[in-house]
């Protein structure tokens, strides 16, 4: 028995002393799970705030602030959403972007025309287009809704969306924290999902790199990179609330939080310096943007500035996807990103 205990202790020590397992566990405990918890907690505040505004107990500015907080937590979470939130189309229920044909405005109004006093089951049965923060933002910020005068029309939807977001985040958090949930899968190996810490770390990095790629798209789409350079201001994420840049900053901070933990695994000082510098440059460039993104993309004098930001995001993506992955000997998606 004593020998068994010694053996188990030795094995546990060996596991603890594996730096990759340590980093993976730290990421799960100290970065990924807290980001999910923060998202859930902001959604709780959003529901409270929505109810308060709808019953006349709160200013619209406070509700808008609660919305920004939820949106920001969701933006931070995007490069960190390993597991449940990225599966089963859940993330589409949080945000509908890109919205190429202004479906959010159209479908929101159609839904409310159809159901004058919208119930939760009616919202749950509707399209993801109207269930998430993008529809919430439309109601709150679009001039055509005149939400203060039309509180009765829009409140059932706002409350329904806030409740849907909270339920979704409760469910996702439960899938993280339940026995053999996502947290266990990222901290104890092998398990049904990951053979070892390397696979789990690969999974985290893959989501993080995808998050950086999404940042490129969120910047590049309104710049017109998909439309022969013709700016598409209404394709910017969160254009109605003029919060595109703040969202990009929150997502970048989420991606950087992963890098901050992974850095200790990298023996190449040059690579570390390059990635550190890439984050700093992008952070500074985002900080220096003088106006909302949808306005900047329409200003010819700002094109070089935006172009440079895009190129730096692209460089960061390459540094992590190619150089960092190779250095760590970890594959970041092969068939998933480029299948046939």
């Amino acid at each position: 028995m004593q020998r068994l205990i010694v053996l188990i202790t030795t094995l546990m020590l060996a596991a603890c002393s594996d730096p990759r397992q340590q980093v993976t566990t730290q990421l799960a405990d100290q970065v990924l799970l807290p980001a999910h918890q923060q998202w859930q907690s902001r959604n709780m505040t959003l529901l409270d705030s929505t109810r308060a505004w709808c019953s006349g107990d709160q200013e619209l500015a406070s509700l808008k602030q609660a919305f920004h907080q939820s949106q920001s937590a969701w933006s931070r979470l995007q490069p960190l959403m390993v597991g449940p939130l990225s599966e089963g189309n859940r993330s589409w229920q949080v945000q509908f972007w890109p919205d190429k044909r202004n479906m959010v405005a159209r479908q929101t109004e159609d839904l409310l025309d159809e159901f004058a006093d919208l119930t939760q089951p009616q919202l749950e049965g509707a399209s993801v287009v109207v269930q998430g923060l993008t529809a919430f933002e439309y109601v709150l910020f679009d001039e055509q809704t005149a939400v203060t005068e039309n509180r009765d029309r829009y409140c059932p939807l706002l409350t329904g969306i806030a409740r849907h977001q909270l339920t979704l985040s409760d469910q996702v958090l439960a899938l993280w924290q339940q026995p053999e949930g996502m947290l266990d899968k990222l901290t104890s190996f092998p398990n049904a999902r990951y053979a070892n810490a390397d696979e789990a770390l690969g999974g985290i990095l893959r989501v993080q790199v995808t998050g950086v790629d999404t940042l490129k798209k969120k910047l590049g789409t309104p710049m017109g990179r998909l439309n022969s350079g013709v700016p598409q201001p209404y394709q910017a994420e969160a254009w109605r609330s003029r919060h595109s840049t703040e969202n990009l900053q929150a997502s970048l901070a989420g991606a950087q939080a992963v890098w901050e933990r992974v850095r200790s695994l990298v023996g190449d000082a040059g690579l570390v310096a390059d990635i550190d510098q890439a984050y700093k440059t992008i952070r500074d460039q985002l900080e220096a943007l003088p106006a909302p993104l949808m306005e900047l993309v329409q200003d010819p004098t700002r094109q070089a500035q935006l172009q440079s930001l895009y190129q730096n995001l692209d460089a960061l993506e390459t540094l992590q996807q190619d150089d960092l992955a190779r250095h760590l000997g970890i594959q970041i998606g092969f068939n998933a990103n480029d299948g046939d």
Partner: protein
Amino acid sequence: MPLTRRQLLGVGAAVAGTAALGGWTVWSGRGQSPLLLSARNDDAGQHYAVGYFLDGRRAFATPVTDRCHDICRHPFLPLALFVGRRPSRESYLVDLRDGILLQTLHSQPQRHFYGHAVFHNSGRWLYATENDTREPGRGVLGRYRLDSTRLQLIHDGEVSSHGVGPHQLAWLPDGESLVIGNGGIRTEGGSRKEMNLPAMAPSLVIMDRQGELLSKETLPQQKNSIRHLAVASDGTVITGQQYHGPAWDKVPLLAIKRPGEAYHPFPVSESQLAIMNQYTASIAIHSEKRLVAMTAPRGNRFFIWDLDSAATVVDAPMPDCAGVGAVPGGFAVTSGQGKCRYFDCTGGAVQSHWLTLPDGWWDNHLWLG
């Protein structure tokens, strides 16, 4: 005792006769671990045609110029064609005993490969799905004759695939009719860029190998590209789709055609469909156990269902799962990112364990036998 290449050539010369059957039997030996053939990369981006025994021993890893996709085994000679992935104009005929590259097969002018091919069971003919890149674009089956003395494939005509963007093809049990997934997407000859998404026309075609169309069926969703398929020994066909419409649409990503019946969706649950992220990769059928297995690399998910009842047998997370193949006891699955796995289906509950194959960089398909 392994054959020398000269002996192999001798066997090849007699390819039409039953004597040729000896070649593979001698080579594979008795009780040997199954051989797994696949396209694979290394982390520097070099492409390989590889053979590994399922117990982890490497048979060969032959560097090739272009990334390959599926592997087409000769029915009895130790040869396989590693088929170039869209839009490659090269495929590689490899001697499976040592990995020697016997031939780089070039596509015809204004044609490129789509990554899949099959040998006819006579061993004399090979059929490959190809893109006729001229206007307005059409799918063809390139026909190749195996020169039995030189062991070289020689282009010997082509027929229409009766659709655009033909992808995987397989023999029906008669060994003379082919079932083909026409993905319906026209792509540029020099790139992988789609040219016709609004006008996609996917179809499931059954035709004889002379080119005569026997049936052509479609699914209701015009953007649901029919790509991969497998055929059970009773002729049941399962197809896997890749949907090019919105990510949140609920569309059938698997479909089934039982012999004599209409082609229709295979009933998997909505939650399983949602997890696939509109993308299915490789399909394998275990005819004796009546099981169908499928990889969904974008959803990081591997599935096994009962072919007849559609009941879920396995629904397992697996990072970037890629190729799947059946062996008598179950299924082997490779991964582009992590460890390869084996799913043992011999007992009541399916047992899974990791294989000692190298981790990651495995491409979407494998041949196992």
